[in-house]
């Protein structure tokens, strides 16, 4: 896929940056003229991925979240959200709907289910004590 635009962001794992991250991604894809649904879907998926970094990846320490965005010439948007936090021992289990390790904090365990439902493709790579990278892929213009 030929990349026609890209961006890189890094910000601390503060919960106020959940809104910043999804708004930045919305602005990044705006010249693709997304439908309201496409925009809402991608913003929701990014919000879930960034929240996971804050609530799970950096729950003990805090740290930096890295968000890379790319737009392909066919309108495919790829967003990579990466943390250097505690990692996930069992990714398959973590991706099961309703599975959560933070029930006390009223986490519903739906983050990955929402990402998968709202994107065309979701990839998760994680190493315990090293961190997690979530890659979200969505083609803008597929709604037409």
């Amino acid at each position, binding site marked *: 896929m030929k990349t026609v635009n890209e961006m890189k962001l890094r910000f601390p794992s503060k*919960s*106020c940056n*959940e*809104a910043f991250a*999804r708004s930045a991604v919305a602005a990044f894809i705006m010249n693709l003229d997304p439908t309201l*649904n496409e925009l*809402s879907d991608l*913003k*929701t998926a990014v*919000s*879930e991925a960034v*929240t996971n970094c*804050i*609530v799970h990846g950096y729950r003990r320490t805090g740290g930096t979240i890295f968000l890379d965005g790319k737009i392909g010439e066919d309108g495919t948007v790829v967003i990579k959200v990466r943390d250097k936090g505690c990692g996930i021992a069992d990714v398959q289990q973590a991706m099961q*709907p*309703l599975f959560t390790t933070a029930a006390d*904090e*009223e*986490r*519903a365990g*739906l*983050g990955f*289910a*929402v990402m998968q*439902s709202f994107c065309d493709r979701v990839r998760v790579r994680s190493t315990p004590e090293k961190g997690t990278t979530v890659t979200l892929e969505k083609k803008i213009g597929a709604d037409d």
Partner: protein
Amino acid sequence: MMETTYENNVLTAYIKGEIDHDSATRIRSTVDAMAQSLRPQQLCLDFGGVSFMDSSGVGLVMGRYRQMKLLGGSLHIQNASDSVRRIFLMSGLQSLGVLK
């Protein structure tokens, strides 16, 4: 962020703006404090003014459902937009009978 009314034993919270992990924490503490002091028969969460919601909204609703059960009352949700409702339906919340 939120306005509330209390009438005929019903506490209604009109949530406005975006619901994510950050704002849900604030909404939760405000609603819980009011419910604890007023002890309403019903808590109604109105999503008509919500412009964005991720799965933090599901945790918010499930937590208030449990809270109202403990207080001997019930929870209802109203005016959820299609995008908000889509996330609620993914969670199976409709089985609790709280969605109008």
